């Protein structure tokens, strides 16, 4: 106990040097803890985002990662589009016939089941049409199924909740085909609410604005998923914007729609040959059928299917994981540099302390005792620095917890810890022991006679 007291008094006596070295170590530890926290938040955010409720994303042939990025995360550019008939392959003959009656097209399409129907059994297929922007945010053309069938959250049981208004419908008397639902961040950042109107821009955020405006009918409550960053519009309204219809060749068989709703502005849905989808979100009724469907789709000529969870895992392993590891290594080096600072500070103080050490020896202290005092001083700096750094990091994370939750959906508390954090204290103590060895050895070798006479 006296050794600790002696070490503590020496720590306090050289308060400026002690505090500065402790602060440098605390900052090093805080950096490591924060990087670990960022690592945890990023991993959880990606994993939450991969918990999308559907097994597969189907899109045109190309990069599976790009398909996942643009359809799940609304990042990167869409690969290309698929004909609407590809989407119809997920429905039975009756639904396909209804589509023909509703949109107009070849009646033969309604005479058979879609090729993927046996694997869907009880699941769903939701189309997405991408390519337009609202400010920097993606405009996503989709159907009301998106809000009715998709679930999110850790258990995949949470339905979308409207913070304001309602979900869009396929056609309303008031706004026709031009309804929109905004993700929470879109509404917050662009200051839009229910009743506001906006025009989407074509192709990129700086692109030409479309003439027909959408009316906001609902704003989603935060989900902590990329859906917070998207503006969802009725797919029919999306199709009806200029340059969104696929040009016809004249070879198509099109029977005009017989069940299209009457629109006050006289808009009619595009016919099936004029319609395209960017991707299709697919959930199979039985999970094991997902693999069968994925294989079958990938064997087809036009489309590919990607499992978002697998693609995200690949992305994490290939890019984000190594980046975070590199960041972690850099911050660990910061800790080593801080430990070297401890070594330099204590070692530099040794010249002033040789007399004190000689006096302690003359009072009966053994070499091992004075060596222990110096090592304890190093440990004191380590323990105080590591504890301060840990609290500093967690307080900082906690201070930004609202922002983090808002942006990523990940909830972090002041005591939310990473499993790796428990390695920090032993690591810092080892560093402290290494930093203390040189000055402690110097204390061990201190010649009593010479230094008492000095």
């Amino acid at each position, binding site marked *: 106990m006296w050794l600790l007291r*002696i070490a503590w008094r020496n720590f306090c006596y050289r308060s400026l040097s002690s505090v500065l070295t402790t602060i440098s170590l605390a900052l090093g530890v805080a950096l490591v803890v924060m990087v670990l926290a960022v690592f945890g938040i990023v991993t959880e955010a990606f994993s939450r985002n991969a918990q999308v409720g559907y097994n597969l994303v189907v899109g045109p042939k190309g990069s599976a990662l790009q398909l996942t990025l643009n359809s799940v995360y609304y990042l990167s550019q869409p690969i290309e589009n698929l004909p609407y008939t590809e989407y119809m392959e997920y429905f039975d003959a009756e639904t396909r016939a209804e589509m023909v009656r509703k949109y107009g097209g070849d009646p033969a399409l309604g005479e058979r089941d879609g090729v993927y129907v046996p694997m869907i059994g009880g699941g769903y297929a939701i189309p997405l049409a991408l390519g337009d922007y609202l400010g920097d945010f993606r405009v996503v053309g989709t159907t009301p199924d998106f809000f009715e069938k998709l679930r999110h959250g850790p258990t995949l049981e949470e339905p979308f909740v409207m913070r304001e208004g309602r979900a869009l419908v396929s056609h309303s008397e008031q706004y026709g085909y031009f309804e929109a639902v905004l993700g929470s961040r879109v509404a917050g950042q662009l200051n839009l609410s229910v009743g506001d109107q906006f025009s989407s821009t074509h192709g990129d955020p700086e692109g030409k604005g479309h003439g027909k405006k959408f009316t906001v009918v609902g704003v989603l409550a935060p989900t902590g998923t990329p859906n917070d960053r998207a503006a969802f519009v009725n797919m029919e309204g999306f199709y009806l914007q200029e340059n969104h219809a696929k040009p016809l060749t004249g070879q198509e068989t099109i029977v005009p729609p017989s069940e299209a709703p009457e629109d006050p502005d006289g808009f009619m849905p595009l016919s099936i040959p004029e319609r395209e989808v960017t991707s299709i979100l697919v959930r199979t009724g039985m999970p094991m059928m997902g693999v069968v469907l994925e294989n079958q789709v990938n064997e087809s000529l036009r489309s590919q299917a990607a499992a978002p969870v697998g693609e995200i895992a690949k992305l994490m392993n290939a890019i984000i994981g190594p980046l975070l590891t590199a960041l972690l290594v850099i911050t660990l080096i910061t800790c080593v540099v801080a430990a070297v600072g401890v070594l330099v500070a204590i070692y530099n103080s040794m010249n002033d302390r040789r*007399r*004190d050490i000689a006096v302690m*020896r003359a009072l*009966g202290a053994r070499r091992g005792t004075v060596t222990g005092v110096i090592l304890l001083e190093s440990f004191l700096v380590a323990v105080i620095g590591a504890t301060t750094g840990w609290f500093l990091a967690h307080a900082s994370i906690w201070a930004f917890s609202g922002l983090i939750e808002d942006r990523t959906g990940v909830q972090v508390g002041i005591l939310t810890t990473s499993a790796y954090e428990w390695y920090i204290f032993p690591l810092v103590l080892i560093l402290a022991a290494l930093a203390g060895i040189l000055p402690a050895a110097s204390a061990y070798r201190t010649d009593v006679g010479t230094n008492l006479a000095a």
Partner: protein
Amino acid sequence: MTEQTTSNTSDVLKITDVIKTFDQPGGGKLTVLDIPELTIRAGEQLALIGQSGGGKTTLLHLIAGLLTPDSGSIRVAGIELTKLSEQGRDRCRAATVGYVFQTFNLLPAFSAIENIQLGMAFGNRAIDTHRAYDLLDKVGLADRATYRPNQLSVGQQQRVAIARALAGKPKLLLADEPTANVDPASSDTVLDLIIGSCRDENIALMMVTHSMEVTKRFERVEHLDKLNRIFETI
């Protein structure tokens, strides 16, 4: 103290044929001490005088076990120091020897009372806080217990150093010119404290001094020049 042997229980210090040499920078050895015999009995008080550089401090360091002789025997409280390991000498010093330095050598990070307690801490003894305060009271600094050395006068620092040397209840107190750095008024106080305390607690005292005034306070005065055989050849 497994290596303890008892010869004459009344001898606190017995030095026999001790030779101490130091390596010289240019090679070779310089003999500093060659003492055939020196004995101090329990409670005896001895003043040691001698010329500067004559080996007085070296002799104190040998007796304290801070240095080892090239040959000869040094017994402190019946313990043969030359047969002990360094750790054994540290233990022996902590248990049997008190040391008052010319420059006080209080530890600057500690208060007066803590400096006294440190005198006990290294001897593997329980800290006797009562005794520490009693000693501080005895040296007239009861109201300065929490003062740091830099908050005390030179005389006060030496009084704390005396209390620290007595804290471990030593059998032998070594004092290396304890009045050299204090003013004449404080010098008397310091001497009174050292001599009086050693008498009260039956502690043998060996004080190195250059002052003839100081030697007058001692019943036994030894000249190192006469004890040390190397001066016979000069």
